């Protein structure tokens, strides 16, 4: 007999505009079947009375399994430092799903992560969105690109282009122009096949967006300008100085991955990093989701980022959205994940308090209705 799970009681933050109390969430075949008042017969009950219930958390910018934890250089697979333009690389091919990062993610309530190549290359490669159990949700989820300090630092050391911001922008533009040429040529020559241009062609077909690493406001604007020239959908990754150009982001309707907002500012381009950016985005109507850039900060920093932003006047509602449904929207996966709603995947977490409090613990993490983490005392914390 197939198993039906019912989560009983508690305060349910559905992220569908409603906060429900003392209901029963019925899960069948890995999906949320219904939210009702009474426990049906023949079900496995998880008692959540007095607890808090949220959709599983989503981090849309990570390198989980690409930069593996605790094994040193052998596990650093995030940057192909040999060529600044590598759209044909696929993050999926570099992920070790046995990396402890995935265990830490589940233990800290993160049920979906978008995993992308690093930011050494102007065009780094294809990202992939996965459940933290390893199930692939979306591949590719976008083309990772990068502006600012990282590519120019890496390739300046190799005495190659790009060694300036102009160089990075030029290489980005050049690759896109070449792709346009390729698409035209391909109409006449059906044997033409180039992995790099094939990957970039998806951008022109609107299959997935460019996800562009940009910290400083000038890099953010450059990214949007270049993508605008080619009519390509853009998402700004990090967007550290986004508060300085929030009107522009809002007017252009560009979503942002914001963060990490609680990290070092050793790089010059991070000088104006502040948790206040979230509040400015809220005021200006910029769609954003927090990110840890894991393992740049630990994955439990997602909860902490939302918590810290409250001190900088972000509303509780937006803080919660920015670790759940907003990430799903920016990934284009909001039909499946990001809220507690009939028909959606049963990715649900149960906590011992308000998740926006820094001391709140995750008691259960469910993915597709299966319990993938259960709190059993402080020893079971992965933080």
């Amino acid at each position, binding site marked *: 007999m197939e198993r039906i799970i019912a989560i009983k009681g508690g305060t349910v933050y559905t992220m569908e505009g409603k906060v429900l109390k003392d209901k029963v969430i019925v899960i069948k075949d890995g999906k949320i079947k219904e939210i009702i008042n009474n426990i049906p017969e023949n079900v496995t009950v998880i008692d959540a009375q007095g607890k808090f219930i949220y959709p599983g958390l989503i981090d849309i910018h990570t390198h989980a399994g690409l*930069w593996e934890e605790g094994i040193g250089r052998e596990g650093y697979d995030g940057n192909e430092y040999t060529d600044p333009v590598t759209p044909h690389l696929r993050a999926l091919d570099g992920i070790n799903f046995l990396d402890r990062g995935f265990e830490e993610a589940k233990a800290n309530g993160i049920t979906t992560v978008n995993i992308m190549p690093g930011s050494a290359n102007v065009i780094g490669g294809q990202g992939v969105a996965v459940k933290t159990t390893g199930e692939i949700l979306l591949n590719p989820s976008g083309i990772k690109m990068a502006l600012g300090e990282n590519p120019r630092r890496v390739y300046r050391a190799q005495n190659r282009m790009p060694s300036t911001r102009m160089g990075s922008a030029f290489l980005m533009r050049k690759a896109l122009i070449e792709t346009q040429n390729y698409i035209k040529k391909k109409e006449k020559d059906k044997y033409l096949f180039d992995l790099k241009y094939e990957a970039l062609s998806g951008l022109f077909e609107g299959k997935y967006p460019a996800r562009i690493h940009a910290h400083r406001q000038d890099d953010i604007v450059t990214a949007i300008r270049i993508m605008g020239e080619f009519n390509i959908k853009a998402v700004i990754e990090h967007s550290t100085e986004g508060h300085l150009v929030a009107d522009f982001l809002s007017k252009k309707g560009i979503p942002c991955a914001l963060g990490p907002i*609680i990290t070092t500012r*050793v790089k010059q381009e*991070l000088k104006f990093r502040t948790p206040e950016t979230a509040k400015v985005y809220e005021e200006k109507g910029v769609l954003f989701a927090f990110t840890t850039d894991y*393992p740049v900060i630990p994955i439990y920093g997602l909860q902490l980022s939302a918590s810290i932003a409250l001190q900088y006047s972000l509303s509780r509602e937006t803080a919660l959205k920015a670790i759940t449904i907003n990430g799903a929207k920016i990934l284009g996966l909001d039909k499946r994940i990001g809220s507690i709603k009939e028909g959606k995947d049963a990715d649900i977490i149960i906590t011992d308090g308000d998740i926006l409090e820094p*001391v709140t613990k995750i008691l259960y993490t469910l993915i597709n209705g299966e319990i993938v983490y259960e709190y059993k005392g402080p020893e079971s914390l992965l*933080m």
Partner: protein
Amino acid sequence: MKVIRAGTLLTMRNNKVLEDVNIIIEGDKIIEVKGGPPPDADEVIDARDHYVMPSFYDAHTHIGVAEEGAGFDYYDINEATDPSTPGLQGKDAIYPGDIGFKDAQAAGVSVCITGPGSSNVIGGLQAVIRTKGNTVEEMIIKEPAGLKMSFGRNPQFYWREQKKFPSTRMGVSALIREYFEKARNYRKKKEKDKTGVDPNMEALLLVLDRKIPARIHVANMEDISTIFELQDEYNIDITLEHVTEGHLIVDEIVKRDIPCVVGPFFVAGKSIQTRFLTARTAAILSEKGVRVALMTDHPAIPIHFIRHQAALAYKAGMDKFKALEAITSQAAEIIGIGDQYGTIEEGKKANIVILSDGPFKASSRVLYHIMEGEIVWKES
């Protein structure tokens, strides 16, 4: 005279919490804490609806030395041209305009220790400073406050890459013994000949004469054991810094009663050296009776998140008061200024924060930060 009318006062001495009391400040000191109506004063701060506690102390940072937001050229903590540089002084490299100091003021962090990084086995001398001042002279509370030393991956890998000594753990401890022996010989020679003053040797003598502790960067168990051997051989005072695997060797730390500065938590991904990194370490050490302070290791974690270091330690099972002491009274003790700083008691320096709510609450904001009697931050 200033008076703070405190609703809830966490004194950070013996878990004492007082309700509805007046903190009376004269000049830079707390002269009295008492109930009843407030006395006449130049300024009365009404915090009857709020939490009042000592401002925060960060027991391990590189603030001002590794300047933030200025790029790698200003990352000035590692004189990585020689693995042993005891004569370097952190105070010579502190930039008072570092954005970290402004953040510290806004977040209620009054005092921290700062100085050299961990590329060198013997890094240099550290200073305990206020987080406000236009010159280093105004900022210094105590210096030298310790001699930074470093074990494990950081010095070992750094010098290995340069194909220089020391590139192994054996090399690291051999180098320390060599320098301590040199310093002992230097002391003997100096008794007869005053013409050979050597700043490197003088710095080492401060440690050998137990005038300052060696503050030792260490992650792994085997290095902690080596440090204990050296401590026995040279009879020196030490603190363990980071202590990533401290929870795996806790009994030995307890036996020796070594102060530990643990953290930082929510730091970047784990190397082999930090593969057992967990926020549990502080809880486990503290539970067994080890004196524990926490750190941001600023700029590794920005200094204004010191309060979150304590919140995470509490979440991971550390006693609530111990976690708060680790960023107030115990931190002040471990950096060597506990006689004057770190609690709210008569005679102590008036380093105080007023918080809108309990210190671990997400929405708790710093309403006032008072540093040695002066308001250095007030929420607008």
